């Protein structure tokens, strides 16, 4: 059975799972941000949150202090996280450019108005 770890949270070391929970919360918040914000920039922020949520998982899986077996990703985890950060930066730049372009063309940042591709 699943033991609720809350009781020992402060005096026992935390594990991968706890990181994953934080990651999951950020991921879900990000996804919801994307799904509910009408402002394109809000959507972008959601993406950042999602990427960060994923990053937390990579770091947690890469860390060898958080689990009691040796199956960590090791440095690979951190390296992937680094790449994610860099790609996030690139993505942000391009996305921002798209948003600005959209803003110039439509005079709006409302993603609901970007429906030209609908079937």
């Amino acid at each position, binding site marked *: 059975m699943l033991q609720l770890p809350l009781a020992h949270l402060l005096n026992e070391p935390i594990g*991968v799972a706890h990181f994953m*929970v*934080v*990651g*999951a919360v950020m991921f879900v918040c990000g996804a*919801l941000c994307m799904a509910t914000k009408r402002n394109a*920039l809000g959507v972008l922020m959601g993406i950042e949150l999602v990427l960060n949520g994923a990053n937390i998982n990579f770091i947690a899986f890469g860390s060898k202090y958080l689990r009691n077996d040796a199956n960590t990703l*090791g440095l690979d985890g951190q390296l992937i996280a680094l790449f994610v950060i860099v790609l996030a930066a690139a993505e942000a730049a391009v996305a921002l450019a798209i948003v600005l372009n959209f*803003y110039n063309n439509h005079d709006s940042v409302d993603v609901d108005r970007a429906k030209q591709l609908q079937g």
Partner: protein
Amino acid sequence: MDAIYWPSFFFLLFGLLACGFAVAVLLATNIVRMAFYLIMSLSATSGLFFLAGADFVGAMQLMIYVGGTLVLLIFGVMLTSQERFVEMKTMAGDWIFGFLAGGALLVTLCWVAFSVPAWRGIDRAAAEQLQVEPTVAPLAMGLLGARTDEGGEHGYLLFFEIVSVHLLVVLVGAAYLARAKISRGTAAERTSHVEPGAALPK
């Protein structure tokens, strides 16, 4: 009761900060506040990285993300911050569907996280024995193609190069995309006369 295990305490602190501000980003309607909350959330995340022993990534998170990417975003906010975009309401139905789907996803993810016993963490005794190793040097070596850490065999030189070039291309592309439109009319023309499926039989 045992004494407080401080790393856990800090994890709790940073974790709650990160989650809390993430939720705040989600719930905030004002775009400027959202940006601020996002900064706080990402900064707290870097704290989590440090706690997990990824000092270099943590630092990069602070520098590139918080220092760079987010500033870019804030530029975006400022460039488009007309009154009517600062607060945009979403339909209640979207919220409900969003929360239904998101809640289900969250539950699933958390359930997955706790379904592997090995992921629950280590004993306190074992934890206090741990030696923290710096990661900057192995990371740097890894990026340059020579892994020094145990278990790693292949370096990341090629990927590193690809990412660098990619970044360059992207930045050039972004600059191209974002520059002010000169030939708006032609662009509109170009897109308007291509009708989908015109070539196909009706």
